């Protein structure tokens, strides 16, 4: 029996940015911890939440920003405009805030069709209206042909916390239960299939959606939410690993309880991907105490974005290093670890 000991984090190997630094895995964490955090160093940033929660006068204001660079701009189930609004609304909702206002900064590439721009802005407006928020300020820049993939969008958002409960990783306790609202892996695959070179036919649609309404239903019902986190880049596994690390707990999820659509599972088999690490855009994890589970599931399943809500795991105990394990269908427990960067299609 050989004991494997954990070691200090490996130093940044790359002297330049590689794509994997944006992949939601270990390299991105290293970039944030070793380069970004030490320079901006402040206690609010250090909490590493999807939104910063700012006590201003007597209110708690949630504040967040995100940039959207998805290629292609239009994909099954959504487009970059809808994504730019949903993503930021969801980041606000994950701190328990009710979204109020958004910004929109456009970086446009010379030659981009105004017709497409109009279509994307209309999509943004429709998504924002449905959520009851307004896009109130913004910025426009144009860069030379070849410098951007048509357009990039940055949105920032503010919202207000109407709840007194602290919803963050630090509130997670042993014996809490992990729930999710929807099936895994659709957004990442839907986008990938639309890129050049992937000649697969499939019906997979992105799950891109604004979940702030569903979160609001949970808050209104006084569910004791300990933590919320959307399962975007890096998917379910990376998100829960980050949470387990921040909260210094051991979480375990059960393979048989994970909702994964057959089409997603099949494509993952072909490409050698693990659906647990694929990005979602309308799926979130909800961590609540055991006695709130049934009510929370009922509320989620009554909402169009929570039909497949399920209990997927538990917070087992405190663990200094933080750990996520998966109980396989054969009852064996194995570690889920951060990937270095994005998953790459395998050879055979």
């Amino acid at each position: 029996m050989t004991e494997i000991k954990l070691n200090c984090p490996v130093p940044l190997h790359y002297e330049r940015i590689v794509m994997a630094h944006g992949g939601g895995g270990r390299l991105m964490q290293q970039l944030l911890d070793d380069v970004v955090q030490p320079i901006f160093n402040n206690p609010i940033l250090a909490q590493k939440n999807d939104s910063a929660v700012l006590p201003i006068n007597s209110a708690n204001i949630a504040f967040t920003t995100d940039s959207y660079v998805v290629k292609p701009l239009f994909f099954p189930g959504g487009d970059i405009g809808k994504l730019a609004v949903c993503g930021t609304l969801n980041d606000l909702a994950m701190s328990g805030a009710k979204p109020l206002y958004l910004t929109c900064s456009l970086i446009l590439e010379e030659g981009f069709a105004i017709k497409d721009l109009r279509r994307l802005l209309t999509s943004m407006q429709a998504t924002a209206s449905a959520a009851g928020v307004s896009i109130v300020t913004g910025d426009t820049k144009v860069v030379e042909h070849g410098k951007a993939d048509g357009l990039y969008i940055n949105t920032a958002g503010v919202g207000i916390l109407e709840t007194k409960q602290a919803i963050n990783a630090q509130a997670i306790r042993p014996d809490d239960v992990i729930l999710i609202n929807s099936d895994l892996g659709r957004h990442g695959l839907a986008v990938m299939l639309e890129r050049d070179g992937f000649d697969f036919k499939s019906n997979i649609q992105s799950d891109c959606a604004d979940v702030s309404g569903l979160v609001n239903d949970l808050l209104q019902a006084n569910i004791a939410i300990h933590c919320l986190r959307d399962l975007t880049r890096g998917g379910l596994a990376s998100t829960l690993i980050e949470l387990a690390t921040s909260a210094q707990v051991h979480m375990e999820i059960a393979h048989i309880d994970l909702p994964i659509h057959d089409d997603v599972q099949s494509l993952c088999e072909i490409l050698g991907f693990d659906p647990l690490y694929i990005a979602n855009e309308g799926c979130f994890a909800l961590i609540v105490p055991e006695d709130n589970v049934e009510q929370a599931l009922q509320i989620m399943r009554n909402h169009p974005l929570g039909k497949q809500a399920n209990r997927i795991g538990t917070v087992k105990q405190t663990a200094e290093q933080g750990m996520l394990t998966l109980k396989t269908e054969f009852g064996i427990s194995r570690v889920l670890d951060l990937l270095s960067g994005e998953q790459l299609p395998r050879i055979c």
Partner: protein
Amino acid sequence: MKFVNEYRDPETVKKWAQAIADITTQPWTIMEVCGGQTHSIIKHGLDQLLPENINLVHGPGCPVCVTPIAYIDKALAIAQQDNVIFCSFGDMLRVPGSQDDLLSLKSQGADIRIIYSPLEALNLAEDNPSKQIVFFAVGFETTAPTCALAIYQAKQRALTNFYMLVCHVRVPPVMQALLDAPDNTVQGFLGAGHVCSIMGYHEYHAISEQYKTPIAITGFEPVDILQGIYQCIQQLEAETYRVDNQFKRVVTEQGNVTAQQLMQQVYIIVDRQWRGMGNIVDSGLALSPEYDAWNAEKYFSVADIQPDEPKACRSGEILKGLIKPVQCPEFNTTCTPEHPLGATMVSSEGACAAYYRYRRYQND
């Protein structure tokens, strides 16, 4: 998913694990040849369902892992030339060469593209007549036919801006090399199912008989692997030495004859260096001279690049099944997926990557 779900059924898995325990009377060491099998075993924890005296060792069947450093350096040398679009399967990009990897080179501006099929590279060549398109053709007999088809079609379409850097390898010679080694511990093999779907298994009878080593051609799902192990142990216990075909739903004795004929037309059998294992006679496939005009090694004059393998990396011993990843002192100390010493740590099928990903926090 048909042909997947029934092979992952927990009850069936338990039944086969018990069947293995029932017939095992003494210790046996079995090697799974293919990296896809290694990952399935570690990912599903199948080794933990077996009796303690069954030792599974992980074989050399990961194409990324065994590609020698010389070919990574050749790829890097070609990819950084002006006017080149360098195309590769995804998981080659993180494999370290002597100085760099393709992913770093890409970050410095080289036009390196991940493609899923070599035929996409042909389309790129047609769409970009002013560029030179190079495809990095690695892999066993599984990927060799599609790469052969690409070069065959390049000739048919008279493309003058498409090249292949070919470093294909063959399974039977490396199995023989392992059995010939004086420190060999392998008593039975799980043959690589996908390779045999192309090549059939007629080549394996001689190995099984000559070395008195049972071979079970095996698939990749949990039930496949347990059935393969069962077939191997059944033979070892009975002292019989033949080739069994567990993967009947895919593999036939003769394999895919059309694919084999295409390979014979495009490739010749050559000796090949394997990462960490040295030169193995007749273990490689190279482009036949008839296809010199599409041979990247010749066109870009990189044939002379022959660096030494890094010394600290013990992937050779791992690929031969002599040690397990956790027994390497570099594992998870100086060697991690972010800073790999060898390809076994980066490839999606590499044994070190499997242990790092699934077993890093556990005892083994």
